[in-house]
């Protein structure tokens, strides 16, 4: 495998609150290779960048970007990386764009912040980018305000902004959740296409496993701030090894099935991040729970290649269940 672009080691993110310490990320390690798309699915994941801008968070571990630990970087150096080398696409483009500035100016801003360019040059670049992401009449649209765009167009504009300085890594935080179903596929295709064109890696955070399967190389499944499964998209989609992932698979409408007779949502409450149950965090909701699950925390153990899962069930049992119970509805 190529030298990783981003390497996260034993990351912990905690928020001290009145009710107790919220363990949003609890010791997670993963890496992203250049040009790779990593899907992050599940409950509770704080985006790498978002968390660094959240000052009230207690963060430990390492976030190595091209070997440099972002958490130890002087604020000014880290600021230069944000927007230029690592950029972000937000969930709701309406609130992520400033309502009082023209869309073109907001894209142009990225150039003005990181490069010594005139306002005019920056604005022209912004128009080019709008054209690139498929916005008709870009010169006219660039002079419009965010609320004058449709949801899909706004997300295209956000993508244009994220691409402005051809970053190495784009973090897309649920980029389609706020959009119409019909527009969602277009936006994901656009991200794919742009990622190839700009040779960037993408971290795609989503709640929808069906979405990531098509657009990601690897998938990481998070539960209660911990990684419970990791593997190639294909392995996760057709041969998941963790009961929580099975739950996710069963609760989506699968593309490869003509009828979606039974959508089975996962039973029980989403996990509290303050009082995580002892042993396996998923044990209160798991249909396969065993005694050991209530006392011992399962470690993330590789099965084959880099497919790994954190669950006490024996591998043979997992393979049997996924074949006999999960993939056949």
């Amino acid at each position, binding site marked *: 495998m190529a030298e990783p672009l981003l390497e996260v080691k034993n990351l912990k993110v905690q928020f001290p609150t009145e009710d107790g310490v919220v363990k949003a990320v609890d010791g997670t390690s993963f890496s992203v290779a250049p040009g790779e798309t990593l899907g992050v699915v599940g409950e509770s994941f704080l985006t790498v960048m*978002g968390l660094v*801008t959240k000052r009230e968070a207690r963060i430990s571990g390492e976030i190595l970007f091209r070997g440099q630990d972002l958490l130890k970087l002087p604020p000014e150096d880290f600021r230069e990386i944000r927007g230029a080398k690592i950029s972000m696409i937000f969930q709701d483009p309406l*609130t992520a764009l400033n309502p009082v500035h023209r869309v073109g100016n907001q894209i142009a801003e990225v150039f003005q912040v990181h490069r010594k360019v005139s306002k005019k040059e920056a604005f022209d670049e912004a128009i080019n980018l709008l054209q690139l992401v498929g916005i008709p009449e870009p010169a006219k649209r660039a002079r419009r*305000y965010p609320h004058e765009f449709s949801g899909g167009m706004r997300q295209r504009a956000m993508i244009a902004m994220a691409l402005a300085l051809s970053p190495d890594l784009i973090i897309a935080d649920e980029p389609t959740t706020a959009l119409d179903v019909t527009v969602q596929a277009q936006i994901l295709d656009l991200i794919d296409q742009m990622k190839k064109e700009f040779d960037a890696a993408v971290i795609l955070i989503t709640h929808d496993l069906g979405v990531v399967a098509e657009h990601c190389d690897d998938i990481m499944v998070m539960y209660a701030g911990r990684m419970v499964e990791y593997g190639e998209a294909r392995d996760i989609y057709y041969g998941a090894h963790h009961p929580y992932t099975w739950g996710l698979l069963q609760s989506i409408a699968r593309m490869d099935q003509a009828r979606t007779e039974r959508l089975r949502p996962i039973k029980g409450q989403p996990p509290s991040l303050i009082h995580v149950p002892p042993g396996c965090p998923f044990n209160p909701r798991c249909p396969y729970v065993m005694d050991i699950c209530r006392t011992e925390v399962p470690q993330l153990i590789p099965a084959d290649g880099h497919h790994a899962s954190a669950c006490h069930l024996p591998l043979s049992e997992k393979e049997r269940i996924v074949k006999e119970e999960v993939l056949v509805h």
Partner: protein
Amino acid sequence: MPDARIVRGLFLSLKEKEFVESARASGASNKRIIFYHILPNALGPIVVSSTLNVAAAILTESALSFLGFGVQPPTPTWGNLLEDGRTASLIAPWLVWFRGLAILITVLCVNFLGDGLRDALDPHQKLVGKE
């Protein structure tokens, strides 16, 4: 003279907005975030609250001076002029009417100015005007 607390409250709530996080994610400096992203969003409410304050101050002054508790004559103020007119109200009642009317117009103008400025500062309002 906007209430400092209003401005502080505005900044604190705007600071939490997603577009501020988005600007930070784009590498914008703190200075840029304050002056380019937060301030223009706060301007509308600041202007509106200022103009309301100005209007209220004019009315308060008029009332106080009319009762003799306000700015002391001979300093000319709306209230003093009104009080002035009152002493002559039996022979020239229009002095009070016109001066009162002038105060009313002034206060209305200040309010209209505030409305106008707010519309000019808020792109949402512009769209409505155009269509």
